[in-house]
């Protein structure tokens, strides 16, 4: 029994490995490299032209770093970082010094994202992930400037996993974004759509319907079904074209309705092109002069079965397990996810909540017995204050920072309290934090029940 079972497993794993490392046309990767690189270039330029480099990374005196040692560079340093991001995205697009540019882009972009939780966006996380995988795929081996320098790297094929890793990743993004919408507020209260849509009444044509509750329900349900299933229809050849039209309509619509989601629609519209077949991409490339001739792709190279070694397969599987785990990790924490937001990030939860409220920090000087409310605007930008208002881990960071400053000034520890009331998805507000719990001198606020239980 046992040996047969193991044999069957081994057989399966060899099949999987052969499939993953089988050769396929490189065209989808090359197109992905070009459009994604162009998008990264534009996105970098946009950040610069909006003045965000200064506003987000140079102006603030305090940052909600993901790790205490990640800080913005002093002086004009951040401008150089974004300059390098621009150069490397151009390099990715042109396939010029591709690997170096991909590594550089991934590292710098991720560094920038880790500087401040305030600016965390799921699609920036996605850009980090996609640019990470760009490092490991040979997208520069066809129709690139690197070929002028190193003609020998020319290749018309790549391993199958190098295309499927992107398809799987994007499917995960959609699926979990959809799964997150399967909740009472989204489907039965049409929240937060019913809060946001009436504000869009000035849009042409659509605007006059935006105040209707029915429209909010329609958007909520359609969005949920779309996210849950679109990847299936993109994978399925018969429905692919229709599904891609759906992608266009859906993301352009959300881009118009919610301009603040920024680059997200464009990232999805361009990256989902990778779901299309090699034929499609080959034709696309031939339009811009990078066509692969039929005989080249069906050459011996394509048929040659390269046996990937065992560990890359396991790494790929491991990566997928992590990707499936991260969005579900919230189940390990007690309490209401939308309320305490533990396990909320890195989970493809987009547009799910409208949280409003008021949060103040009170510093008590135990020696002189005086309490003082911190004027947050002295330390934080309005954007940081807004994000701080409802995110407990940021509250703890800020409370500790304020306390540390007090210690530096007075030489002894203050007590720091957070008084907060929050409203979730247009309900009446509730007490959010225990205002008598000192977050400066206690090290485990979450464990100690500092966040008040959410009352339905």
């Amino acid at each position: 029994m046992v040996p047969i079972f193991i044999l069957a497993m081994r057989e399966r794993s060899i099949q999987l490995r052969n499939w993953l490392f089988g050769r396929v046309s490189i065209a989808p990767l090359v197109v992905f490299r070009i459009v994604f690189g162009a998008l990264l270039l534009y996105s970098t330029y946009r950040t610069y032209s909006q003045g965000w480099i200064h506003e987000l990374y140079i102006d603030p005196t305090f940052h909600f770093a993901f790790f205490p040692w990640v800080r913005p560079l002093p002086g004009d340093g951040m401008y150089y970082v974004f300059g390098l991001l621009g150069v490397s995205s151009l390099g990715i697009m042109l396939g010029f010094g591709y690997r170096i540019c991909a590594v550089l882009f991934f590292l710098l972009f991720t560094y920038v994202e880790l500087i401040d939780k305030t600016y965390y966006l799921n699609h920036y996380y996605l850009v980090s992930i996609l640019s990470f995988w760009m490092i490991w795929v040979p997208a520069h081996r066809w129709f690139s400037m690197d070929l002028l320098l190193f003609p020998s790297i020319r290749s018309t094929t790549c391993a199958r996993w190098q295309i499927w890793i992107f398809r799987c990743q994007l499917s995960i993004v959609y699926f979990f974004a959809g799964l997150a919408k399967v909740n009472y507020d989204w489907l039965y209260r049409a929240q937060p759509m019913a809060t946001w849509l009436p504000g869009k009444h000035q849009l042409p044509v659509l605007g006059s319907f935006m105040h209707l509750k029915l429209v909010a329900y329609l958007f909520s349900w359609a969005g949920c079904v779309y996210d849950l299933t679109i990847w299936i229809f993109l994978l399925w050849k018969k429905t692919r074209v229709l599904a891609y039209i759906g992608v266009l309509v859906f993301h352009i619509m959300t881009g118009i309705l919610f301009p603040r989601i920024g680059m997200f629609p464009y990232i999805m519209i361009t990256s989902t092109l990778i779901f299309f077949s090699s034929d499609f991409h080959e034709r696309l490339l031939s339009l811009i002069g990078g066509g692969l001739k039929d005989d080249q792709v069906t050459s011996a190279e394509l048929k040659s079965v390269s046996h990937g070694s065992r560990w890359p397969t396991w790494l790929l599987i491991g990566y997928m397990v992590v990707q499936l785990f991260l969005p579900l990790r919230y189940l390990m924490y007690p309490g209401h996810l939308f309320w305490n937001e533990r396990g909320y990030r890195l989970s493809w939860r987009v547009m799910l909540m409208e949280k409003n409220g008021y949060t103040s920090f009170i510093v008590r000087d135990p020696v002189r017995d005086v309490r003082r409310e911190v004027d947050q605007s002295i330390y934080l930008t309005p954007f940081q204050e807004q994000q701080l208002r409802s995110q407990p881990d940021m509250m703890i960071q800020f409370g500790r920072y304020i306390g540390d400053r007090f210690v530096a000034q007075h030489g002894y520890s203050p007590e720091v309290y957070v008084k907060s009331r929050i409203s979730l998805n247009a309900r009446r507000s509730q007490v959010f934090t225990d205002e008598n719990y000192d977050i400066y001198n206690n090290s485990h606020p979450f464990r100690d029940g500092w966040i008040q239980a959410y009352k339905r």
Partner: protein
Amino acid sequence: MRSIVKLWFLLIVGLGLLASACTDDEPAPPIVVEPDPDPDPEPEPNEPAVEPTISNLLINQVDEVIIPTYFDYQEKVVSFTAIVDDFVSAPTESSLNAVREAYLQAYRSYQAAAVHNYYATSNVDLVNTTNLYPIDVTLLDELISSESYNFNTTAQRRANGYPALDYLLYGDQDVLAAFANDPKRTAFLQALVGALQTKADDLVQRWTGTLRDNFVNNGGVALGSSVSVQLNRSLVYYEEHIRGNKVGLPIGRLGPNDTPIARDASKIESYYKSLQDNSDETALELVRVAVEEMEDIYLGSTSEAGDGIGYEDLLLAADQESLDTDIKAQYQQIYDQIAGRTLITGDENLYNSIQALITLYKSDLFPVLNVQDADGANDGD
């Protein structure tokens, strides 16, 4: 193709079941404020028979709350100017007292005008040119003796408006003699009051001009709509000036945590009069007038006219009686706190009651009305 349709159908049904499995026992239906006229008005016995819509709210706000406030302010300032002129031509104890009385009337009216710190009012920089305190006495004396002043400059902010008048009218042991001995002081007084009048005239002209219609036509509740601007900007004024400058700073409650913690009575509004009175009653009254104007916006009423469409009516139309009760109770608590004290400094109860209203607005009123907080202008998701 049929199988796809079937798949979608199954999926939608499945979703419904799944979501209902994690049902929330939710009694109150979600609220949508409709930007368009509501078809079924239900006039309450004592309410005007006007539907609680955004556009009716805006008409009432601008015609019954905002513009009358500026007319009143203009009237008080015009009369103040005339009384100052009388005083200058015949400086006596009684004409000085008349000036002081007119000053207080104008200052009170200013408090209401300043709450509407948006559109024209913020454009003419009313607050910064009229009521920054504490003043810089050295700067003020320099300006008086130099005889060159421009009341619209940033450089002169700390020697301008009502705080400067407070010093001129109450800052000396013998104010009458101070004016009699220094004609430059009299000239400064006249120029300053003249500048206040110019600004008041300007405000009336702007608010009653095209702005009035623009205000009414800028409907909806999105960022940049009149509702969003009025609620957000008046609340910012309330936070910074009423909570912060009028109360928080003097009691040492608000500020950077790493500067020495101290109460500073010199930061009080109408400081010199308070010194003379040996009581903060004037400062407290100014707080009360300002808070009352906030409440007028909320109720949609002015003290003279009856109750028109205010944010309260939008709440009631959305079945939020309990929130309305809480907000009105909070206003009452602030008035009770003011009535029960003679000093701004002392305990922190006044500050806390003022603060509690901000919490109610931001965490309850705004979300229920679908009004977004105006903070932050970057991408979000």
